[in-house]
């Protein structure tokens, strides 16, 4: 059951991720965005299969629920017609293929070192207090750094969206 669900969800994630960037039926950015939402939802399913319920809930809450809604919001405010007419640029395509190829090579090389199915049983089991304790004790510094990063991004947005600096 779980294996079948894994393959279904993984296939759905990969397929919808492909349709985000290369959809043969529609070149509409809103369609791409909605397929990205579908990718997020399939990833959530994979997290549930790993018993990481907290991550699954946060994935839906943050990515599908907030980030992608903002994406849609911005896409709808842009001029969609121009975007639909735009041709694929060869430089962009080549850069994309090269970066995907590099990441894939790293994955394959790294994964070759492990035996399939040899990973230990998940210890977190989606317990939210455990996760919180880990984040605020063992991984406090990385967490704070990410926080500062987000703050920097926020200050940047405020600065850019101000029409004139006084």
């Amino acid at each position, binding site marked *: 059951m779980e294996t079948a669900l894994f393959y279904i969800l993984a296939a759905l994630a990969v397929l919808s991720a492909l349709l985000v960037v290369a959809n043969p039926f529609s070149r509409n950015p809103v369609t791409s965005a909605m397929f990205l939402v579908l990718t997020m939802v399939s990833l959530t399913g994979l997290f549930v299969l790993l018993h990481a319920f907290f991550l699954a*809930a946060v994935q839906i809450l943050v990515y599908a629920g907030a980030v992608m809604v903002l994406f849609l919001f911005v896409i709808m405010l842009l001029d969609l017609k121009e975007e639909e007419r735009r041709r694929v640029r060869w430089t962009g395509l080549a850069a994309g293929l090269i970066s995907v190829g590099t990441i894939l090579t790293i994955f394959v090389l790294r994964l070759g070192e492990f035996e399939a199915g040899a990973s230990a049983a998940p210890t977190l089991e989606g317990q939210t207090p455990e996760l919180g304790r880990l984040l605020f004790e063992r991984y406090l510094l990385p967490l704070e750094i990410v926080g500062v990063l987000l703050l920097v991004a926020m200050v940047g947005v405020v600065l850019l969206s101000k029409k004139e600096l006084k």
Partner: protein
Amino acid sequence: MMDWIDNLNDPAQFALFSGVKILGVFSVLMFIVAYAVWVERKVAAAIQGRIGPNRAGPFGLLQPAADAIKAFLKEDFTPGHVRKVWYWLAPAIVMIPALLTSAVIPFGSQIGEQKMVIADLNVGVLYTFGIVSLGVYGIVLAGYAANSKYPFLGGIRSSAQMISYEIAMGLAVIPLFLWVGELNLSQIIQSQTGFVGWLPSALGGLRLPNWLAFQSPMLALSFFIFVVAAFAETNRLPFDMPEAEQELAGGYNVEYSSIKFALFFMGEYANMVAASAMMVTLFFGGWTLPWFGLDQPAAGLVGGLLHIGIFLGKMLCFVFLIIWVRWMWPRFRYDQLMDLGWRRFIPLALVNIVATALWLWWSA
């Protein structure tokens, strides 16, 4: 019958009981949605000094059936300029999150061995917030699919409004988690049994139930922010910008007719019911009442049904409150809405978190 159930293995029993619970919750939810529309029209009529629906059946009680038949039999007209795929998908996408939120709500204690909740998740509240945050897609896509100005403006407004108030809503319940120390909704209800301890005994018989909204001033503030955010999330007056009929001619659902329009309508009421259920569960003790030992899980069938009744009763009070407010308040202006969300409620909710944390630290 009982032998047959006892002879099933565990997964089959689980599937059977879950199926029964899902069917039960779904039918009750749909029934409440249908009659919430009737209550809405009756309340509106009473407030405006009219009679309201009174033709179909006694007191117009068959009005929901008449509405449903009308919605199904009307011509399902698709305007020529809409984006077909999204036009068809949007009403469905509105309904799905509205129905999914009810999965984690404990609507009763237990009947026999069965807990009266479809999925007793450890991350219960986060699940609800996740699903609620998906609710905006249906409205945005409906606005986009319509491919005309007013629905589009409605869609844009709704996405901005729902994102803004989602933040306030999420921040508002953090003090509650700090206070209880649990995300699981059943555990949160467990922490609301008995009476509050802070009322002086000099008041004699006067006692308040130990519901979270009464346990501390911080939690009462949480509840206040949560209620306001819930109004904004369900697109109800005074925050119904996405469908402000006087300025947007109806907003995101302008181009829809017959059953597709009805689905938007049902989605709104289902969201209202879900929001009321969340308020009852988080702040008003869920299925518990502090009298007659009704705050402990029920032993028999009667007790179990009584708990479900208590839950439904509390929930319907909130549904009525939401309907009542709609006919009493004028609509906010859009900039006032954004100002209220970002510059009043979010800072207030943040201060509330710090205050609760300090209080718990000091009293620990």
